[in-house]
């Protein structure tokens, strides 16, 4: 009978991404309620060395699929590996980070295992013997509680939504031999922006809207840099061609969950408000006191952003000394 919870991890450049530990902590929390071990799955090439780090978050069994064929992060190879680790661990539930890669793996795994999947969850609880997950829908306008019937229940968690909880123990590392058939995908090129903080993973997001007036986002970039944050853009700023699509926050862009969200010259269209709704503290800076954003913020400044934002940057720099 399936038991315990298996958390899938993800690495970048030989290090675990933070979402990995969020997944392990979530698995541990579910396992305490439904019984069985909290387990971590580590997949990749040359990943054996870091696998035991998951023990610090409560992983009691650590299953490692270390295979050269996983070098390029190809989803079809990872799904095969993931299915074999699930078979080995036989968990009642699976937790995986809803990253770009994690979403792909979760979706294919659900089909391969005929298993229920709740995607991009912000909360998970156990109700009787059933797992209930909370997930935003309609770009965050609504939160849905969904029940998962079937095994394993796959819960893909949104980055930054679950706490990492230190829970050190002696995790037992097991190497699992996996068999991979030929992949139908190949990696041709990889372009990563070095030093860029990903919007969905950022502690602070500073967004520029139509009020920016042009593609000169230097005041927004400077504040983001001072706060170690990421730069976002409203849909209208993206439509104007001022910023790339990958910077767009909103219902047809990215949903962000920072501690601090600073909206500069953003009026606050309903699609944009949905994308930033789960930010902890929202600041709005706009010269129009009637802008809808002021009814959805915690702190507001009515002023020209080109005066207020550089002044904020200066104040932040002063604090840092």
């Amino acid at each position, binding site marked *: 009978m399936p038991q315990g919870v298996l958390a899938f991890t993800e690495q970048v450049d030989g290090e675990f991404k933070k979402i990995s530990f969020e997944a392990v902590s979530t698995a541990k929390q579910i396992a305490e309620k439904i019984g069985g071990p909290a387990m971590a799955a580590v997949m990749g090439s040359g990943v054996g060395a870091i696998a035991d780090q998951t023990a610090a978050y409560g992983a009691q069994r650590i299953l490692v699929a270390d295979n050269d064929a996983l070098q390029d992060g190809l989803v079809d190879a990872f799904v095969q590996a993931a299915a074999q680790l699930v078979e080995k661990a036989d968990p009642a539930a699976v937790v995986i980070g809803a990253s*770009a890669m994690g979403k792909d793996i979760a979706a294919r795994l659900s089909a391969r295992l005929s298993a229920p999947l709740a995607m991009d969850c912000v909360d998970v609880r156990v109700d009787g013997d059933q797992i209930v997950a909370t997930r935003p829908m309609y770009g965050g306008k609504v939160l849905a509680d969904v029940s998962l019937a079937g095994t394993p229940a796959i819960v893909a968690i949104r980055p930054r939504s679950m706490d990492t909880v230190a829970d050190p123990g002696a995790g037992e590392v097991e190497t699992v031999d996996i068999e991979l058939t030929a992949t*139908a995908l190949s990696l041709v090129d990889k372009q990563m922006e070095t030093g860029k903080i990903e919007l969905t993973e950022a502690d602070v997001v500073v967004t520029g809207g139509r009020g920016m007036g042009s593609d000169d986002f230097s005041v927004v970039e400077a504040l983001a840099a001072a706060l170690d944050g990421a730069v976002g853009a409203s849909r209208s700023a993206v439509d104007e061609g001022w910023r790339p699509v990958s910077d767009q926050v909103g*219902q047809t862009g990215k949903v962000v969950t920072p501690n601090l969200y600073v909206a500069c010259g953003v009026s606050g269209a309903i699609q944009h408000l949905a994308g930033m709704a789960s930010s902890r503290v929202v600041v709005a800076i706009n010269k129009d006191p009637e802008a809808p954003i002021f009814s959805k913020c915690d702190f*507001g400044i009515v002023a020209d952003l080109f005066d207020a934002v550089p002044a904020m940057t200066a104040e932040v720099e002063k604090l840092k000394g």
Partner: protein
Amino acid sequence: MEIAVLIKQVPSTDSVVEIAADGTTIKTDVIKWVVNPYDEMAVEEALQIRDAVGGSVTVFTLGPDKAVDALRTALAMGADTAVRIDTEGKALDGLAVAKVLAGELKKGSFDLIVAGHRAVDDDNYQVGPAVAEFMGIPHISMVIKQELDGDKIRCTRTVEGGTLVLEAALPAMITTQRGLNEPRYTSLPGIMKAKKKPIDTRPLSETGTDVGEAMVKTIALKLPPERKGGRIIEGESAAEKAAALVRALKEEAKVI
């Protein structure tokens, strides 16, 4: 090139979403229904490929009678034929939808399947890759650029902090991301022509796919905690307001 496009009818993104009396669905009487924006990009991309290399574009949707409007929009954009799987009032989860669509797609012979990377109603990110898995074909998600190369498709996709260029052997599934294209508007002649194009309606119970009971069920909808109107920071100048704001963020909100 035989191309299939998977589309879904969804509430427009400017819709205000309210929870219905049953507590598990939304009020639909005030909603404006549109084609999921990412699926419109899928239709557009399929049309561009067809027009470049020849072939045909078949649009699939799964939904109630009113979902015909979504198919008509795709046909008016220029798709050749359309298929609606009539859900007959049955509630399906994402996996069941994928299973049914994969079953219907297998009845044809498609080289390429294009879908939105997610629908903006249930934000599930599941159907495209799950269809590909059921069909045993590769998929590339969140594509912002594609190029056919013989029996392969080469795509640029977005990931956290960058992009990847991946190649998949055909037949393959790709899902669209903003940036791929700007979907065309439907023209009046296009709309007129679309009215004459056939729509093949297939009742779910006659598809031969057994979907069983939904494994994922919505048991409650709730609205996210409402953010009340914020405190407007007063001051003589922008600089004074900025200083007071940063102080509040540090001392009260403790976020910097």
